[in-house]
């Protein structure tokens, strides 16, 4: 899986691919505000002009929590391209976000860390 996504990233000759991102939050908490800011910055940096970002406040639409399998907030979901990816947290760890979005190859150590 990694080689293909890697090639996707490294060959800009591919037709423009739309990234559909959703950020689930629960109200205007410091964490959700931080997550939004971090995400906005990342997208501008790596996905200029080829992403759609939707912010969903679960306090307003709680039924979506079940539909989209949301557990933690904030959660960033990459709906497209498939496969679906989920990144939880305030997205302050840029490295992990990029790995999670397959914008950067995974380290050999896997997804441990902290």
């Amino acid at each position: 899986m990694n080689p293909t996504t890697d090639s996707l990233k490294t060959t800009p000759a591919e037709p423009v691919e739309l990234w559909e991102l959703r950020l689930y939050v629960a109200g205007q908490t410091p964490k959700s505000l931080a997550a939004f800011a971090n995400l906005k910055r990342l997208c501008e940096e790596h996905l200029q002009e080829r992403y759609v970002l939707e912010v969903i406040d679960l306090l307003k639409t709680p039924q979506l929590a079940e539909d989209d399998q949301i557990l933690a907030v904030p959660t960033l979901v990459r709906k497209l391209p498939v496969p679906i990816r989920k990144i939880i947290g305030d997205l302050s760890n840029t490295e992990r976000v990029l790995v999670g979005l397959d914008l950067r190859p995974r380290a050999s150590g896997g997804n441990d860390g902290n």
Partner: protein
Amino acid sequence: MNETDQRTHPALPKSPTGIEGLDQLTGGGLPQGRPTLLCGSAGCGKTLIAMEFLVRGATQFGEPGVFMAFEERTEELALNFISLGHDLNVLVAQKKLSLDFVRVERSEIEEAGEYDLEGLFIRLGHSIDRIGAKRVVLDTIETLFSGLTNTAILRAELRRLFRWLKDKGVTAIITGERGETSLTRYGLEEYVADCVIMLDHRVSENMSTRRLRIVKYRGSSHGTSEYPFLIDEGGISLLPITSLGLKHVASSERVSSGLPGLDAMMGGPGYYRGSSVLVSGTAGSGKTSLSAHFAAAAAARGERCLWFAFEESASQITRNMRSIGLDLEQAIQQGCLRFHAERPTSGLEMHLVTIHKQVQAFQPRIVIIDPITNFTALGSDAEVTAMLTRLIDFFKQQQITALFTSLTSGGRAEENTEAGVSSLMDVWLLLRDIESGAERNRVLHLLKSRGMAHSNQVREFLLTGHGVELRDVYLGPSGALLTGSARVGLEAQEEAQSLVREQESSGRSRALERKRAAVEAQIAAIRAEFGVEEAELKRGIAQGDARAAMLAGDRVEMGRQRQDDAPAPAATEKLN
């Protein structure tokens, strides 16, 4: 347990699970509005008990419930529970139940920074509010530990979750996987302090038994032992041991044992309805025949009898009973008798289930279990006793008269072998072989019979071509029991003696007659003689009187002639 029933702890309201045995154990159910931890190893029935709690809550107690599954998809759950008799989809459609599968897959989740589990709270809160749930199950929330790496956050959030559940006022079951050293792998017991129930699944001698134990129940008394439970099409059956409450109504109605002789030993009418009867004896002592009489008597009264045969097939029993003149075939055709014959190979629990199910289906008034000895191969003495206790309780609650046969091995003291079981029984009949005079003969003792005056006499137990007969036993000259041909010999001897005695006494009475006749003849002769004498004496007396009168007359005459003055007028007056 009774205290809670009588509401001496009004401070602790309880949520009934609807699982009968469990409610008995907990004195009414789980702590209402609080979380309960249900822990146990894989496959021991956590999910099932939890779901049963919700389904029964929704259907029996009008309390809708939310099931949050972390391990199984909702479709899988629905499918699993259909095979156990619950259609979850119907309940979901009726808004009595809400199923939510929470997918936690570590490979799909990347953690990048601070987060909390508000999403889970919102989800759960939404489900609860949508159907007005009073009950919640989280199965198994520990899955979060495998999906999320930041345990510090996780623990803080779990603590918050349980507090939140309490604030919501829902009665919750949180399941947890059994840990190596602690109750749960991730120490959930730390957060759920009100009630902890442990499930266990053990295999001993190739037989698996599930058990339930209440580790802790804050603010309530509870049964502390391990209680076996079963899972079958009807859901969970947990049958706690009776000591928690012996409440069944004792009937004073009596049912015949099928043997007039035995009924007579119990003072006439027979066993009390709903009592448990143990018939123990060595091989071939007639236990099954005794049972067959009981069954036949029930059929004759038009009552249903269910016979669990663990050693013989139904046709073998009916054939054998025909040889002693009992036609069970007819009872079977009438629908009054049903056999359930199988080898006891499965575990004790399965037997309990089988018996329960068969009894529920056939609704008999009499149950025969022949023999219970075969259970002992399936478990330890204690387990068998526990199982029988539950069985007997079940029968008593249903007012079913139960007859258990038990094989005692020769050489052991019969009274000892059943020590564990006999105390549960109301009536205990012991069949014994007595060997004397190159014969083995059967005798029956009525060792115990609760609540009735009963004979202390041993009876000889005869299997004849027209059924079982009970005979008084004979005591020989030395005081020894005489049975079989010795008894027959003695009977013959006594008969001969009595004939002689009869002859003797009739001879004597004839002699007496003769004597009486003789005496009466003598009396008649004497009386005749006396009559003669009397007549003579009377004649003599009469003559004497006449002479005296004559003399007096002469004297007056003489006086008149002598011209007597003085006495003459008086004498004259007197005479006139």
